């Protein structure tokens, strides 16, 4: 990391320097990858890699949703709490009605729709009532967290293995697919990433989301209903948060009201490390995912090296600062 920044500072006028700045997310990712695999032999083992991939599932889907919101120039602080709500409700619901696998799927769909509705409410408050996104989603952050505790007076809800639906969910969270032993959750989010990447790059929806964040007034005056696009970003974001919560519950086989605390911050940090601009209009799906895993890798290697958790947090923060400085440098050079 240190090495990387130094060489860039010296070579900004030269092509390698420019190359570095242009692809900094990718290069930092690979440098970290190399350093990590040298630092710990257990880092590049199949088990560890799959572990990291599976652990990051909720953060990845939340980061995708947050990317849309950040692209419109907004922010969503509620994602972690909404995930907890989703995780709690799915556990309670499956334990109630999970007699069949079909009812499990129905419950998941109901939960995702609930997420969309929550996002719709936030979107309307932000675009129509003109509340600042920060405050609106901060309010939903506390509402969501409070609700998650209220459902069971703070008790976690263990999935009932006897029920086929619940068992299916537990297996989904813990088992791996026949394909190379990749965890199911990873396959699910790989598909979602692909959908997001295609939508953002090739459809009018993606383009207008970015345009709305770039200059909302100009887009509005061009005859596009900006509010619709901004609201749908929040709808998708909350839906993704609920999905994240379901993935957490599936993995742990238990719904906890304190789940996903602060995940939205990791997701936002992942977006920003991937070059997403907090003022909107700039950000890529692929780079966001890379950002999320950069952050995850830092955490993972520090765990493997048994660095204590307090210094871990400090180091993580410093690396985020470093990555964002690089982003700024590269956007200036353009």
């Amino acid at each position, binding site marked *: 990391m240190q090495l990387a920044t130094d060489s860039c500072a010296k070579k900004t006028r030269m092509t390698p320097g420019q190359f570095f700045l242009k692809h900094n997310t990718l290069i930092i990712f690979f440098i970290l990858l190399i350093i990590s695999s040298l630092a710990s032999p257990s880092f590049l083992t199949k088990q560890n890699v799959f572990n990291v991939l599976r652990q990051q599932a909720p953060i990845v889907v939340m980061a995708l949703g947050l990317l849309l919101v950040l692209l419109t120039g907004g922010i969503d602080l509620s994602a972690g709490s909404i995930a907890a709500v989703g995780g709690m409700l799915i556990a309670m619901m499956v334990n109630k009605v999970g007699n069949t696998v079909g009812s499990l799927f129905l419950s998941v769909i109901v939960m995702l729709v609930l997420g969309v509705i929550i996002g719709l409410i936030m979107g309307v408050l932000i675009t129509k009532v003109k509340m600042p996104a920060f405050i609106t989603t901060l309010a939903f952050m506390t509402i969501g967290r409070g609700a998650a505790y209220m459902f069971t007076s703070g008790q976690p809800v263990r999935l009932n293995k006897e029920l086929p639906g619940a068992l299916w969910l537990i297996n989904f969270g813990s088992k791996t697919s026949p394909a190379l032993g990749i965890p199911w959750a990873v396959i699910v989010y790989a598909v979602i990433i692909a959908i997001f990447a295609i939508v953002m790059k*090739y*459809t*009018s*929806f993606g*383009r*207008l989301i*970015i*345009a709305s964040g*770039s*200059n909302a*007034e*100009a*887009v*509005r*005056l*061009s*005859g*596009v*209903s900006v509010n619709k696009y901004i609201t749908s970003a929040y709808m998708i974001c909350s839906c993704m948060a609920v999905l994240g919560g379901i993935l957490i519950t599936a993995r742990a086989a238990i719904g906890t009201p304190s789940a996903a605390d602060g995940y939205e911050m990791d997701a936002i940090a992942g977006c920003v490390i991937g070059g997403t601009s907090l003022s909107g*209009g*700039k950000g890529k799906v692929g780079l966001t995912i890379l950002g999320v895993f950069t952050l995850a890798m830092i955490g993972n290697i520090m765990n493997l090296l048994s660095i204590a958790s307090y210094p871990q947090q400090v180091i993580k923060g410093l690396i985020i600062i470093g990555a964002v400085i690089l982003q700024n440098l590269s956007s200036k050079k*353009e």
Partner: protein
Amino acid sequence: MAEQTYRVEMKNINKSFGGVKALNDVQLTVKPGEIHALMGENGAGKSTLMKILSGAIQKDSGQVFLDGCEIFVKSPKEANDLGISIIYQEFALVPHLTVAENIFIDRLSEDNKGFISWKKLRGSARQLLDELGFNDIKETEIVSDLSIAYQQVVEIVKSLSRNSKVLVLDEPTALLTNKETRHLFRLLLDLKEKKNVSIIYISHRLEEVFEICDSVTVFKDGTYVDSVDIKDINEQELVTMMIGREMSDYFPERNCKIGEETFRVTDLNNGRMVRNINFGVCKGEVLGISGLVGSGRTETIRAIIGADKKESGKIELYGKELNIKCPRDAFKNKIGFLPEDRKNQGVLLELPIRHNATISCLSRYTGPCGWIYKNNETKDVTELTGKMNLKCSSIEAPVKSLSGGNQQKVSLSKLIASQCDVLIFDEPTRGVDVGAKREIYALINSLAEQGYTIIMVSSEMAEIVGMCDRALVFRNGTIAGELNGSEITEQNIIKYAMGVGENATCN
């Protein structure tokens, strides 16, 4: 020319952006106490050179002298301290602050050591505004609430307040009407004569240059063409110097039959600025809207297309009443609009030209699930930008990398691409060079000939006179007069705009 010290001398200046060479070994010399015009087509490098002078960007190589001493300006603040101040083409005001705060933005608390004395600040701003004759601007108004022309005035006041030795104005009059322009010229001549200030004046309006400038330097495509005294040159020669060829009639002939009325606005009202507006426009007709700054022209247009909520009024197209609540409704009903404020309302600076051009008509290029057919889009945008003579490295380049005039062409392309039946242009030629202006006029003509209904708001009277079949003159939020065909003359427009001869109707 022996031993003359120039106030400003810039020698062998080079500047590239990425691969694009914006300035190639150019020079500029300005004497003390002269008004020096800097001219050239869009993208010639005028603004770039001025940004180098003011320290906003850094030159790649070359020398800059101020009163004979070489200077190395690294930031706008240093330039300011040296007595160089500049009014940028795209303004640099802080939108959420008041007029007073903006004028004194770098001197908010000079004598109070970090504490702002609001009374004093407002007092000095008021005094300055009065002194310079802009009495109708309140010092406590928030800048973003001002019309864009008044924002320009604030920008001018801000620069004039600094007692600088060198004052650069990059297209200051692009949005001003006659009255403010006259006023500005008086102030500039005063500065030149009384304070011996050197003024560098960039404009695409030839008549202004001949009126107040003493000499002119011409650039073309980032290179230096020549410097001459204004008295040694005429308009035709200057145009030839700029565009490298002769240009015939400035306003091309339009050859079209005016059809029946297609678009009508009845009893439109919105606050103080839009009162009882009634007018109709016909197929194939170009209707001009003129008036002073703040006369309600833009506000009327915004109310028509739903950018602002209107209080009352009926808008009809082909005899059918439309319910327009937002710009989207307007575009859906085939009423398209070009905003006057390009930077904030016209273009998406960070996004490529291609995305900008098709944003109003994206549905034409999309299939199932909003899938964009990029090839069709690229083909159409390439064709359109070719027709508009847009100077760009590729249609994938972000709009912010274009010169001001070329950004305007992107904004225009967007409107043209929307294929609306009624096209409303608010200052269509703002900041575009003479050659491109003629192309835009020709384009508007061909649109009229194809049967589009056209409304054109313009602060440039020559444009209204040269282009319109009929003109409405606005004053204080209402239509003060209507002029037909040969009645459209500068005198008649001024008469109505200023409110003289109120009773002499022209219908």
